[in-house]
């Protein structure tokens, strides 16, 4: 770890102003940034502690949605009664992530911006385009069992590791920011993330010094929600595949609306809109759900070690929707 200077921002404006310092980084829960600093992947000269900013409330919005402060911990967000009742998919996604200790420490904004766990990204002795642009991707021909099958490029197949963000993708969350060139904005979560393409080192569309201040959840869509995470051990493991699914069916058991987002398989939290559209109007059942799985991974590409994620995603998608149609 490199020596750094530290300040505790007294308010959002001060945090954003301090971010103009060269080499400055925001730190909230620190559950990922500190790990990366210890292995010399991140070497910030200056840390701006935003963990105590007054962004810790979850507020009802007029339209029936929720506004979640960026510093709300993962634990508090998952345990919020309104979230449990209206957005169970989000609670389930969060409690399926990390460990209780990490969820107590991790923030909502920080969770969205956590970085990949690709082991080559963590090992500074190895080529990695995300860490050292132009050095090459070690995972493409290497140990890539955990890597992405969707959204990858010749430069990078690192998975975005968040569970929470996958549920937020399915919920069409919006991100509010302060700072940056525009001084702040609201953008859909789908526009927060960038595919790696030729520049895997740029993971989001946030500008330097731009701070996430809140996440807005629109009113929950009609239908039942589930989050199914498939992983190597029963707890405290990143997803091999995770599925956030919402299904609304009419009296004739036809799909009125479906939402599908995937984790563990994409370079970004993955929304499978083609699959959703394909389900529209179809009668629920194995055929429809299996077709949804096929469509969702139609563009997937395995790299050897992670080939199994493609059939696993198909099966898990079908299973998640089947669970949503089970009699309560």
């Amino acid at each position, binding site marked *: 770890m490199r020596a750094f200077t530290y300040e505790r921002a007294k308010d959002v404006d001060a945090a954003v102003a301090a971010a103009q310092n060269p080499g400055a980084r925001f730190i909230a829960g620190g559950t990922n940034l500190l790990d990366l600093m210890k292995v*010399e992947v991140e070497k910030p000269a200056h840390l701006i502690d935003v963990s105590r900013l007054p962004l810790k409330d979850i507020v009802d919005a007029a339209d029936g949605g929720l506004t979640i402060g960026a510093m709300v911990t993962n634990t508090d967000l998952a345990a919020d009664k309104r979230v449990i009742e209206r957005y169970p998919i989000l609670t389930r996604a969060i409690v399926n992530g990390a460990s209780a200790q990490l969820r107590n420490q991790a923030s909502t904004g920080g969770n969205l911006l956590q970085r990949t*766990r690709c082991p080559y990204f963590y090992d500074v*002795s190895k080529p990695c385009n995300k860490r050292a642009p132009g050095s090459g991707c070690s995972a493409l021909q290497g*140990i890539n069992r955990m890597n992405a099958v969707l959204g990858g490029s010749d430069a990078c197949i690192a998975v975005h590791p968040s569970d929470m963000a996958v549920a937020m993708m399915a919920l069409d969350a919006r991100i509010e920011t302060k700072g940056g060139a525009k001084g702040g904005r609201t953008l859909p979560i789908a526009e927060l993330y960038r595919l790696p393409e030729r520049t895997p080192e740029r993971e989001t569309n946030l500008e330097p010094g731009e701070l996430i201040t809140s996440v807005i959840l629109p009113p929950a869509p009609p239908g039942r929600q589930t989050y199914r995470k498939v992983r*190597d051990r*029963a707890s405290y493991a990143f997803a*091999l*595949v995770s599925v956030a699914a919402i299904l609304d069916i009419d009296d004739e058991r036809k799909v009125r609306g479906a939402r599908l987002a995937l984790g563990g398989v994409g370079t970004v939290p993955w929304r499978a809109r083609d699959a959703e559209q394909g389900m529209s109007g179809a009668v629920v059942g194995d055929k429809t759900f299996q077709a949804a799985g096929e469509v969702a991974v139609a563009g997937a590409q395995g790299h050897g070690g992670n080939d199994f994620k493609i059939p696993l995603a198909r*099966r898990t998608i079908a*299973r998640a929707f089947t669970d949503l149609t089970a009699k309560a």
Partner: protein
Amino acid sequence: MAHVIGEPIDRIDGHAKVTGKAVYAADAKTQKLAFGAIATATIAYGEITSIDASEARRQPGVLMVMTHENAPEQAPWVPKAEDPFARPKPQLDSKKIQYFGQPVALVVAETFEAAREAAALIQITYLANKGAFDIEAPDREIKDPKTDVVGKPAASKIGDIDTAMRTAAVTVDSTYKTPYQNHNMMEPHASTAEWTGNMLTVRSAVQLVESAHQCIATTLKVPPDQVEVIAEFIGGGFGGKLPVYGDAILAALAARELKRPVKVVLTRQQMFHVTTHRGASIQRVRLAATQDGTLTGIAHESVAQTARADDFVEPIVAPTRSLYAAPNRLTAQQTVVLDLPIPGSMRAPGEAIGLLALEQAIDELAVKLDKDPIELRLKNEPKEDPEKHIPFSTRNLVACLQQGAERFGWNKRSAKPGANKQGQWLVGMGVAAAIRGNILRKAEAKVTMNSATSATVEMDMTDIGTGSYTIFAQIAAEILDIPLEGVTVKLGHSSYPITPGSGGSFGASSCGAALLDACKKLKARLDKHEGPQGLSAMGRVEPGDEYKKFAQFAYGAHFAEVGVDADTGEVRLRRMLGVFDAGRILNAKTARSQMIGGMIWGVSSALFENQEVDTRYGSFVNVDLANYHVPVHADVPAVEAIALKVFDEHANALGSKGVGELGICGAGAAVSNAIYNACGARVREYPITLDKVLPALG
């Protein structure tokens, strides 16, 4: 005399541990302590061509940078020695790089942070040569060792296995693979070294105090009586702390140069490369049987990794030599020389992975014969050691299998895979046998009366979390007929009487028997009205003819129930039972913890652990506990262990056999057999992750 030995007494050191009073190697408080950080090689095979440490030396607080260019002279490494752990372990003694992660520099600074930052600033260039990193490469260099790590013949042959296979009614011929694994004990390897004049004191996390004492003294070219090694508390060892590593040697060298105490702790990531690991293996098992399930032939051949930097022959086929009767037998062990880090002993070296293969093969034979796997094992129970033709000291495998089956509800198992579906889960049961060689080593112990009701025990033995402190207090209290609270147990100083230390499950029996001897001698004198105050006695033990006349093993039977998700292939343990014959149990509570801990590790080896090698770089890839999976609590519900009441009079005067490694032996095979019973997936490449189960699901 109060009955104390065997009672489930709480650890006498438990309070000190949970309150932080127990001093581990990295906890040592001392004046003017300086902090060392190790920099490691980023190539796997070749040599250093240049080192530029100028920026590191300029960092505020940096006191020294040690590399091969300026390291003090040390004794040279030797390839062979009677005690391999006592060999010199010179550090930074050459520009040669023998494995990825080899220490190449030490930075010592006023703070840990400054040392670590400076270590990252050292610029090193290398000339990398083409190394060998793939255990399955077509051009791999295979060696046929004569003996294994404990000096037993690497191969054995009785009768004619090939003919047995050709003529048998039913055969199994299967190849199994086990991956690289790492000990990953909680406490990292750590040392704090301090010189007082010519006297060196090293607090270090080592299992074998005397071996470490010899190693450090020899390496530094210092007389052994000027070195004291202290290891009072150790946060897990599992074989990974049998050797001395760079932390101890570098701390001692730097402390001498700087004339102040130095502490060096490995990072979790460094532990994967700097220390030993369990080598990967490829194992072929052949079984020949008559239609009624009588084995006519049994063969077990293994190929495992060794390192060019140091040789290690894991005794993988050892359990196969004694577990089942069969007239035609063959065992053989080869190694593949790779330029990877050095393999070494890890909990139950040999049995732990040998039984993953053998006990799955037995299950495969049971399926082919359409026979209950317990019945098949009972049918092939040997009356004497099938290779040595000598009697067993005690052997209660049959009782373990039968009592376990009864308690576990084995009769509810359907032999047909996939027959038991509960909601999303395909549920199955598996069984496997456990066997682990029992070892006694030479040991000495001293006990001194402090008063009529109190005494002090001294040994250089270590407590690596096993409960050594507690069982020794129990032995002394019972034999001297004094209260348990009156016994002070002092362990882990090289100036105390010499024991074999902790390893190979020989510690409790060897040291316990030596202590028993000392206490009995002392009690005889007390009974003659000598003392009591200040009266002391030495006790000793060494293996005698009983180890030649009798085949000595500990045994067990594992029963596992797993669920396999019918859609995703996720495997989850539901419950597990182990029934063990480990001779006399010295403390029912700490022994149970050892057995359960071993069983959980067996589950871990079946389902999770895999230290992956990138053969392009010659390095391990998943070098932290987020990516190297071990079980979390949710993975190991309802694990229970039961010990049979046994006294092995041939083992030692206490009647105990080694228990520390027994629990892992065979446990993973019970899980893999349960997976087959649940869903029909026969996975022969460990760990059994869901990607290997999925193809068997519809």
